[in-house]
């Protein structure tokens, strides 16, 4: 039963209680200056954005098939069965491929630190695994951020749209985007108007690289046979040439293998090039 967050932009009043609760849960500083920042960063893992008279909220989407976890060379990012994508800073070597791969530009880096970590929301994995709500959902006074079972939240979102069709843009963001996300959005206007990336692919991103990576055993096995076979053929020609008494280069080091002269099968064009030169 994967968990999720439903953020209803039409209910959000921009009070930023979620931001404060999030900062407290991570032990990050939070004051008026940080509250004014409308962008997630290494010291602010969720942010309320203002788009005219509407609000939107940014946080890690905790994708159903996360690109970040698939690209991490050391497996520092893991998708849990509970839903959250969790991060192990002890494994991370700081290649920042997760940041490059994330279609939502969520992971942030501690750029000025000498021992930097990547930072992102993990949908309060620790709290949720104890049966508690995420800190942001618990703090939200209007119900704009709701935490619960993903399927139930999708059903609830559909119900809200059906009950007040005039109030909602008729789609749930996060249902199909990159194969589905754990954070779902409802909005009164098309999603790009509240700052969401609507050009992301509908297919899960890990597929794009796995399509190539899964060929690896085939490439290695076929390549071994092919290269080994070519060597066997060319080497056989040399053995024959040697037996037929082709002259050997004297004085070559033992490491310089196959010191037979030009072979019949070898292309002859360089000889022509040589001929051209006086």
């Amino acid at each position, binding site marked *: 039963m994967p968990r999720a967050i439903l953020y209803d932009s039409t209910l959000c009043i921009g009070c930023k209680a979620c931001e404060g609760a999030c900062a407290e849960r991570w032990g990050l500083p939070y004051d008026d200056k940080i509250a004014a920042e409308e962008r997630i960063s290494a010291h602010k893992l969720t942010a309320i954005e203002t788009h005219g008279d509407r609000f939107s909220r940014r946080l890690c989407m905790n994708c159903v098939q996360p690109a970040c976890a698939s690209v991490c060379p050391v497996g520092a990012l893991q998708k849990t069965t509970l839903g959250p994508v969790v991060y192990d800073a002890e494994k991370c070597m700081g290649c920042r491929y997760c940041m490059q791969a994330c279609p939502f530009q969520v992971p942030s880096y501690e750029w000025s630190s000498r021992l930097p970590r990547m930072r992102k929301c993990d949908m309060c994995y620790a709290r949720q695994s104890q049966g508690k709500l995420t800190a942001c959902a618990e703090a939200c006074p209007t119900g704009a951020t709701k935490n619960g079972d993903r399927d139930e939240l999708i059903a609830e979102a559909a119900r809200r749209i059906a009950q007040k069709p005039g109030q909602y843009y008729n789609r749930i963001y996060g249902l199909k985007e990159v194969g589905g996300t754990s954070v779902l959005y409802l909005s009164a206007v098309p999603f790009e108007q509240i700052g969401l990336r609507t050009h992301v692919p509908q297919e899960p991103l*890990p597929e794009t*690289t796995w399509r190539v990576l899964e060929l*690896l055993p085939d490439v290695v096995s076929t390549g071994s046979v092919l290269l080994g076979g070519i060597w066997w053929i060319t080497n056989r020609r040399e053995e024959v040439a040697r037996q037929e008494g082709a002259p050997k280069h004297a004085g070559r080091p033992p490491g310089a293998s196959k010191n*037979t002269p030009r072979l019949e099968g070898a292309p002859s064009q360089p000889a022509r090039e040589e001929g051209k030169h006086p």
Partner: protein
Amino acid sequence: MNLRLPKITFWRAVFAAILLSGLYATYLRVFYGLGGSTNLSDRFPWGIWIAFDVMCGVGLAAGGFTLVAIVHIFAIERYKPVLRPAILTAFLGYLLVVVGLLYDLGRPDRLWHPLVMWNPHSVMFEVAWCVTLYTTVLFLEFLPVVFEKFGLHKPMEWIHRISVPLMILGVLLSTLHQSSLGSLFLIVPEKLYPLWYSPILPLLFYVSAIAVGLAMTIFESWHSSRAFGRALELPLLASLARVLAVVLSVYLWIRILDLTHRQAWSLLLLNRSETWLFALEMALTLVPTVLLYQARVRMDPGKLYACAVMVVFGFIANRLNVGTTGLEAGSGTHYIPRWSEVAVTLSIVASGFAIFRLIAGYFPIFEAHSAEGAAAPRELEAKEEDPVSVG
């Protein structure tokens, strides 16, 4: 002699200036982190330390596996005189890639993590393993040079015994990670500009790596012939240039097909920076391809060298476009490397030249040459000393 001395001093001064700036940039990197030494940001996490130091570094070292395949697997023995310089370039190239990575990784002390913490779904994981194994292979392929220098015949026999599987392994590992550097970007379909994003990025990276490997072989032969005052293996390089022309033609044709199938040509009508960068990259690839089909270009050391340089710059343009400029629009940000990023990159390149020269002066790298030399040394001696004679 009178002409030579001030010139060498000039290049030595440039070299020293580059290394000093690199040293100061290193201080910034160590004590002020990536934030104090780069212009990277959350929206633009990879800069030239990845796009140039790693992606170009690995590609420019591709001559190693290409020539091993040509000489030892396809047994086209006459290219042997340029094999050792190619292996040395590759070995140095990969070591310098690791140096570049130490700068770029947020936690360079954890460089070894992918070897023990596995994620087979990650392209980066595969690249890490391939680069580690291939650097080891290159070390073993370079060892005979050392054994020969010191007359160690026993170890030479040992290494000779494993040489065939070793060479096949090297070619396979190169095939995997040269293409995988392209696969790295398959995960960003919505970020990388469509002139560069293609499902066949791995194939494009592989073919262009072979091309630039050949171009680098010509490049370094030309430079070393001047630095060491030895004759240029011109007929040999001319025939290698033929191979290069064919590989470049194949590469260009694949790109044309790719852009056609993805219906991306119309993007060239837009007056955007990407259009011009793409045009530059294509021109730097197309012009040498056309020129190299002409015998008078291939047999003229200067023109041949100019073509090799164009191929190298075309390759660098391509990797920088995929790794940085092509990602700017999709990331909604601009990235211009900070001076310290450039200083580190230049220092790495300059060190590469200097170390190559040192090793080539001490070890028998161009040993096989005297037997094959048929070029015109007279011509070369008349010309001035070149930048490689630094150090």
